[in-house]
């Protein structure tokens, strides 16, 4: 995963300075690995999270460029967290379900792992949308977003695993998504079904990442209001930043990927 290729750029740190950084921040990187293990009821050493976190720390220390003005921990945290979660998912403890008390806990772990892909700011220790809303209200909105995001992930995972009798449980979410505008359906499909990051999707749609982030937020906020306040909430329109995507939809996508999925079981 991580190439051991120390930067040859003269603006980076030399080996000695990089090693100093590793020694200074080792305890901190271990605390990140321990947090991941704690939340998933795993052992941070037995399941290999300690080694993964240290490897990521060394990798970041060698590539760190203090001249860019970014604090080291701000630069490295996301990578260390990602290495820890990946190690956990690859471990025997994960696949065997060791430590998980029930099937529900195991499924919850799967959903939570995917939440980091949809909301990568969590890896930096920050709630979604933290820069836009401050205080208790901002925290509550962030949690609402996470709950909806997790619901969509659970819907997809559930549909993948469900038998014919169980699909009704997930139909409510999919039926609602099928009524969204085609671009919104496609956004959700690309993120939650195909596993694209918001950044990658922005690249594909040749638009600023912020446009995709905001559109995703609008959709999630709508879904939250729809399921908490009732069915009279107006479906959101596509914002100007993504209007150009409408013209590039294929015929199939124009119908709405979830609408097609409901009809045929395929997108």
């Amino acid at each position, binding site marked *: 995963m991580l190439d051991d290729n120390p930067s040859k750029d003269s603006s980076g740190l030399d080996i000695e300075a990089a090693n100093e950084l590793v020694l200074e921040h080792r*305890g*901190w990187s*271990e*605390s*990140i690995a*321990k*947090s*991941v293990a*704690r*939340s*998933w009821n795993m052992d941070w050493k037995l399941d290999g999270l300690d080694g993964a976190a240290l490897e990521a720390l060394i990798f970041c220390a060698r590539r760190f460029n203090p001249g860019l003005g970014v604090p080291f*921990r701000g630069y490295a*945290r996301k990578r260390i*967290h990602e290495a820890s*979660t990946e190690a956990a998912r690859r471990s025997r403890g994960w696949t065997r379900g060791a430590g998980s008390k029930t099937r*529900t*806990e195991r*499924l*919850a*772990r799967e*959903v*939570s792992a995917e*939440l*980091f892909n949809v*909301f990568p700011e*969590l*890896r*930096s*220790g*920050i*709630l979604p949308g*933290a*820069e*836009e809303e*401050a205080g208790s209200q901002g*925290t*509550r909105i962030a*949690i*609402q977003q*996470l*709950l*909806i995001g*997790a*619901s969509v*992930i*659970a*819907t997809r995972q*559930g549909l993948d695993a469900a038998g014919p009798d169980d699909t009704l*449980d997930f139909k*409510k*979410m999919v039926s609602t998504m099928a009524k969204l505008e085609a671009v919104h359906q496609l956004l959700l499909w690309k993120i939650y079904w195909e596993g694209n990051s918001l950044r990658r999707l922005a690249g594909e749609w040749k638009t600023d990442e912020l446009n995709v982030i905001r559109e995703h937020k609008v959709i999630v906020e709508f879904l*939250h209001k729809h*399921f*908490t306040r*009732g069915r009279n909430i107006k479906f959101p329109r596509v914002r100007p930043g993504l209007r150009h995507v409408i013209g590039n939809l294929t015929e199939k996508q124009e119908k709405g990927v979830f609408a097609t999925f409901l009809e045929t079981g395929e997108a």
Partner: protein
Amino acid sequence: MSDGIKDKKNRVGGILGSSGVRRASSVRDVEEVKKTGEISRVERTGKSQRKITRLMSAAEREKLFQMINEEAEKLFGENGLPKEQREIVENAVRMAIDASIAEDEDV
């Protein structure tokens, strides 16, 4: 009061013609550039101020979990999402937030 206003003879007349442009004289001296002084104070900017992004802390973990529970209560139920999904989704969000909070973090 002067009668000059009414007196047409004393009115400002039109431009008769321009004489040549006078040649620019040579530079006599240039004052030394003065050093800028220290900044005395910085005032608040306008309305659009970037908010400080704050890390979640271990101390607020229980509060966050409580909030998750409250919000899940609103989301799952008769008019909301199926109750059967609640435990999975609520636990997933709790795990994701818990995994994001490092104990040894400078907040």
